[in-house]
């Protein structure tokens, strides 16, 4: 009885949030709509990190590569299979999820640093590999065109608003599904894995298999976020998925608290705000080309270290650190 009501509350909260976002999207300019769609996309990607790191205790440095897998899968299915863009985004999530499952059964089942290193290898080698397959379009990449908004929305419904609607809706639905999953038996099992994998094993949980499954779901969500990212920049190329993207996602997750799914929007906001802040700093004090291009990376990394040092368990820790969460 209690459980049903919390589920309903959650659903209601998501519907309400979607409604608020819709209203907001009507009242802000195109730049804010565009930035808003990036916030939604990053929030989704951070949610995938939170599932993996906060709930199964694993660390991935290759979520940029998994996003790329989803992005290429989505682009190919639009360009070559002529799929509907909505279907293409689902394909992006599915292919990345399957890829993650294969990788998960190899690596994510192992404890220790193996997943982190293997995903790092993936993220570093992916651009080179993508350059070598003509079907992936090399350095230029391939286009990812989701088309103009349907005419029934009216004449003045801009492309940016359309981007925002798609990103926000995809993020809301996926994160709603994820929070339901984490509130279910599986969520408890994942937490058990993270907190004490030996005890989890003793109580009959197949640790390796569940870690692989968590990694696979996380990859699928990352793939969807990758599809959204290349939708926003209208094309997929290796340079859209640098290793620094993985670091940025990790920073977003650590800053919001690595087991706090509610904070993902804050994480997305931070990631969108950092380049903006860097730009305004540079325009104010000026600087060399090296300074301009390295400042955002510096800020992301510094934020990551500060967050690990001072609020390792999320900003919520500062508010009530005497209470033990979960």
């Amino acid at each position, binding site marked *: 009885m209690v459980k049903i009501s919390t589920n309903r509350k959650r659903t209601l909260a998501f519907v309400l949030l979607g409604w608020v976002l819709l209203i907001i999207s009507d009242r802000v300019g195109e730049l804010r709509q565009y930035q808003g769609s990036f916030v939604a996309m990053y929030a989704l990607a951070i949610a995938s990190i939170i599932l993996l790191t906060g709930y199964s*205790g694993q660390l991935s440095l290759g979520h940029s590569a998994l996003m790329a897998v989803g992005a290429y899968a989505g682009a190919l299915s639009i360009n070559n299979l002529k799929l509907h863009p909505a279907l293409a985004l689902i394909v992006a999530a599915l292919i990345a999820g399957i890829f993650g499952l294969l990788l998960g059964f*190899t690596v994510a089942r192992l404890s220790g640093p*193996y997943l*982190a290193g293997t995903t790092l290898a*993936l993220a570093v080698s992916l651009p080179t590999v993508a350059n070598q397959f003509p079907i992936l379009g090399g350095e230029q990449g391939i286009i990812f065109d989701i088309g103009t908004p349907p005419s029934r929305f009216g004449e003045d419904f801009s492309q940016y608003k359309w981007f925002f609607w798609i990103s926000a809706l995809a993020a809301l639905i996926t994160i709603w599904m994820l929070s339901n999953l984490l509130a279910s038996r599986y969520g408890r099992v994942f937490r058990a894995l993270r907190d004490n994998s030996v005890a989890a094993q003793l109580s009959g949980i197949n640790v390796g298999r569940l870690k692989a499954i968590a990694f696979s779901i996380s990859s699928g969500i990352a793939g969807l976020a990758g599809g959204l990212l290349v939708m926003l920049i209208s094309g997929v190329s290796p340079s859209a998925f640098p290793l620094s993207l993985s670091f940025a996602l990790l920073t977003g997750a650590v800053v919001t608290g690595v087991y706090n799914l509610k904070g993902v929007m804050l994480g997305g906001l931070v990631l969108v705000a950092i380049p903006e802040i860097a730009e305004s700093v540079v325009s104010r004090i000026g600087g060399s080309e090296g300074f301009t291009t*390295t400042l955002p990376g510096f800020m992301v990394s510094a934020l990551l270290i500060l967050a*690990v040092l001072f609020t390792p368990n999320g900003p919520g820790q500062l508010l009530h650190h005497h209470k033990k969460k979960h």
Partner: protein
Amino acid sequence: MLEFFTAVLTSLSTGAIYALMSTALVLVWRSTRVINFAQAGQAVLSTYIGYEVTTRSGSYWIGFIGAVLSGAIIGAGIDRFFMRPIFKRVKSGPIVMIAPVVATLGLLGIIQAIVGFVWGLNYLTIAAPVSTEGLKVFGSVIAFSPFNLMVLISVTLSMILLTILFQKTNLGLALRASAYSPEIAKLSGIKVEAIRTIGWALAGAAGGLAGMLYVPGSYLYPNSMEVLLVFGFIAAVIGGLDSLFGAVAGAMILGFAINFSTTYISYKLVFPTAFVILILVLLIKPGGVFSSKKGRKD
């Protein structure tokens, strides 16, 4: 036949550079139980210092010493002033397992940003002290230069020195004891934390050495060591992460596999080969090819 011979020689010299990186990772892993992703940053920073010294002094060898020394100092400094406070601060919560690793990642980003800020993002190169033209064998030029030979000799020498340090000196004994069992080492009077800092210094020096040997045949830019970090990690995994011998052997296996697949099948296979080897090792023998007994578990 000549092709085969050349492939063997180039495998040895590329494997040698991977070996430095995997040794650096293993040295830190043994003492700290962290894969030090900042190693790529440390190596690139000390190589930039080596570049600066080389251009100012006009001598590769002074730059070489500068890179190795600064690598050691940077490594020790990072352990003492960065890792130690993190281990002290982050003690509870689910992030405690990953906090040190995440911190090394943040450090990597910061070092790369600083290097890009100070030296710019251009591709630099360091002139090799000996010729990088291929040697002539029986009238035909092969893809193995005197510089490759120098790489091979330098790495062999440093490995011999490292082995002597570990097997024949008291410091080596302390290093091994602290890696094997920090608690017992502490009880027998070894200053485990100081010893750990020395391990980090050795690893940093190996990174600087790797950079000075890698860059003349390639380019120097803020991200140029990421690839070496990946290959070093794969080599360390092949060797079982815990063993220095395994790290070197793993690097040689990787060097041979990559060079032979690119010589005989396709030049495109550098990363796919490395990745397939990594996956195979993790599937079949995740403890490493050379592990006979079960290592310490975490």
